[in-house]
């Protein structure tokens, strides 16, 4: 059976409709919005924390959203092995909720940056990435002011050791270097999973690269892989 997706709507979420549209209209899946004041996850199989500026992000990105009533349910869900994907602001919220290790600092340029980037799939054994090919980088856009991944050296070592780094920023031919790093992230990290492998956080927006009308399709590979892996 195909998974049912739930897209959480925080006040200030602004990629909630984009995620909904990509999952529902492009991939033809069952999707529902989950309101931040509610606690019922409505039997969803995969929870999406979408991009945006939850609560305005005036304090620190994601810092307030993690205290939303729905987040208690999301945390419980994750402890039972439930699948969660946090995109952009959603990734920031997952870090604030300590469901994933590390922090996201202001971009090295100190500027917001929106553009298409290339990602290498570093680990294609996870629930989220199984079936994606490592040899060809994915072209998926980013749009954030605070996407500069930082962690202390022990955390970083453990991420590497446990194969938790899932996506890295690269050039179009797959080179991961300073030039292809859009925000200063350590090791060009663009997305990671938790140790349990059921929670993914990523700065790039796969939901923005799903509609062939927009000339970008690689995002649907990522979302499509999740569906396939759920069904297997």
């Amino acid at each position, binding site marked *: 059976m195909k998974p049912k997706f739930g897209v959480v709507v925080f*006040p200030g979420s*602004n990629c909630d409709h984009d995620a909904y*549209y990509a999952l529902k209209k492009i991939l033809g899946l069952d999707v529902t919005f989950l309101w931040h004041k509610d606690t019922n996850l409505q039997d969803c199989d995969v929870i999406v924390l979408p991009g*945006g*500026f939850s609560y305005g992000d005036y304090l620190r990105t994601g810092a307030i959203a993690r205290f939303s009533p729905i987040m208690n349910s999301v945390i419980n869900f994750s402890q039972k092995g439930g699948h969660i994907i946090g995109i952009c602001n959603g990734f920031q919220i997952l870090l604030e909720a300590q469901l994933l290790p590390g922090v996201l600092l202001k971009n090295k340029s100190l500027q917001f940056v*929106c553009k298409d980037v290339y990602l290498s799939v570093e680990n294609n054994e996870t629930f989220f990435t199984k079936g994606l090919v490592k040899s060809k980088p994915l072209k998926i856009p980013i749009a954030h002011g605070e996407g500069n991944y930082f962690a202390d050296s022990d955390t970083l070592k453990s991420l590497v050791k446990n194969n938790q780094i899932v996506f890295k920023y690269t050039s179009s031919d797959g080179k991961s270097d300073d030039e292809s790093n859009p925000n200063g992230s350590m090791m060009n990290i663009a997305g990671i999973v938790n140790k349990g492998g059921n929670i993914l956080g990523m700065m790039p927006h796969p*939901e*923005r690269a799903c509609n062939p009308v*927009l000339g970008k399709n690689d995002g649907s590979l990522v979302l499509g892989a999740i569906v396939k892996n759920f069904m297997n």
Partner: protein
Amino acid sequence: MKEPEVNLSLALEHGFTEEEFDRVKKILGRIPTFTELGIFSVMWSEHCSYKNSIALLKTLPRSGGKLLVGAGEENAGLVDIGDGLAVAFKIESHNHPSAVEPYQGAATGVGGIMRDIFTMGARPIASLDSLRFGSLDDAHTRFLFDGIVRGIGDYGNSFGVPTVAGEVYFDESYQGNPLVNAMAVGIVKIEHVASAIASGEGNPVMIVGSSTGRDGIHGATFASEEISEKSEAKRPSVQVGDPFTEKLLLEASLEIIKNGWLIGIQDMGAAGISCSTSEMSAKGNSGMKINLSKVPLREKGMTAYEIMLSESQERMLCTVKKGFEDKVKEVFEKWDLHCEIIGEVTNDGLLHIDYEGENKAVVPAYELVLGGGAPVYYRDSKEPEYLKEVRAFDFSTLPEPKNISETFLKVFSSPNIVSKRWVYEQYDSMVRTNTIVGPGSDSAVIYIKENNKALAVKTDCNSRYVYLNPKEGTKIAVAESARNIVCSGGVPLAITNCLNFGNPYKPEMYWQFKEAINGMGEACRFFDTPVTGGNVSFYNESPNVAVYPTPTIGMVGLIENLNNITTSFFKDENDLIFILGEDFEELGGSEYVKIIHGKVAGDSPNINLAVEKNLHNTLLQLINEGLIKSAHDISEGGVTASLAECCIINKEKLIGAEVTIPVKSREDFSIFSESQSRIIISISEENRSKVEKILEGKNQPFYFIGKTGGEKLIFNKKFTFELAQLSDIYYNTISRIMNE
């Protein structure tokens, strides 16, 4: 607190003329109260009343075609795009606030124009920004540039509307008085269009959104005077933006509009509660009884005067159908926003304002508003002296450059020509997942999910041309916007305008304004693109200089068939390159003469509207028949700069070209001429005869100039440029200047 005594000297301080103050007394039959004086002063300010411009604006084509509401009737223009949908769009200036507080000034400019769109019931789908600054060599300019771009980015990014197009120009005339013109575009189902009206005696009046503070008091008055050293002290007149609250306000407003619980809704921008209560009442031939004690305040001890004049952002005034108050409240509570009943609609035509148990104002709403009692002036106009001098310039006296290659690279490096990547990468241009063509092409193309069509949107104005010839220059601004829309495969629908000029009390300034309006009217009638509304910003003068007259055009076009979407860059090797249109070696106001010879001189290029229209029709036919691979307008910098862009605009696939550019009298003149009504197209070789036949049939002048291919741009067999070098100049010049 004791209120100041109202007399002539206080009225003059509020910006009234003696004559206007007499008129206020006559309307009321008495001396106004202090609160009333404040209300009249903001409502009769240039910013709200358009008193020095409205007479001329009324000469523009303001209705007809697919317009669903006439210009000025609602918060934004509304155009039918079929399938039961309409597009709402408008452009507005935020120049004065941005000059003294660039970040918040620009941010609240974006916020204000977004509210104008969603008060129509439309969901904003795109944002555009037309920006003008002094020279980038100047540190203060770089400070303003950085702050304004950040302000626009932070507001739009958080609010969640993609910023997809616009323009940025640099010229000394904008030193100290930058222009920030923000445009927004929204989509609405025609059955859900909302109106800014109050009617039905006893219907409740509600204020929703943010609380009211002391920020922005007299912002409208501040925007109605020249910028001077004293302007810095007016920083408190600049409002502070909160995109998060605006996002909530958007969702809540669209929800209550869709449910049909409203009579009307208007945003609170300039002149706050004064403006929204009086305009909504006047529109519905009604009045309002308002109790200011009910307004949620964010500061203690505010007076009635301050509450009426506050320009705190992210607020709306709603008139609600009696009985639906609780439903409306419920929605705003869901979004954690204030929603208070502050009064009711009356049928006596009066604004009746009470505060803390006292009556503070009783004013006929009609007398306050534009189109009602607000003054209307025709100013004296006089052709400025400078025109004779600049137009007498003889271009043959310009020395011919010794090294054309070096000269080209210098012109091509001009911040006016190079990519504005440093700007647009700071904007989220993709949120809402409708951006088919984003920033950096001739116009942006936005997908309409509801009907599988697309909109092409663009802002445009070359103000140097307008300075040299206000009438022809403005026609060019309209023509070029339309050309950009057509190059993207769209059919031009309508325009909105943002008219940035100097002090209208100076006859020379008013003459420029009058000429520009005449030119705009002529061009818009010719292209059948009516004016849906817009904004006038006068007093764009700093102590040393007035800005170039800048009538920014915001245009929207419709792409019915997604296959028609066309982009500007070369697609494949070995394609044929044609120039459509004639060169007349026109250098007036050109980037070449400014950058290389340090002059802004001559007359603007000639514009023949019939020739232009024929070009559009021809190109649209070629696009319709699927014969075009790329189309790019020839503009600033001339044909070579545009060719270079065709080679490198697709960063991921640079494609060179070898071309021969027809030379008339002088090579530099032909290369850098900015003659209008010209487009570069590329086609595949197999379509050559079909294309030529159509061009000949349409009497469209054209020149085959060469082929695409390779890693170099080579022209006239002797000038060779590596694409890597051109690309580096194009994409990195501005960031290098800003990161120094």
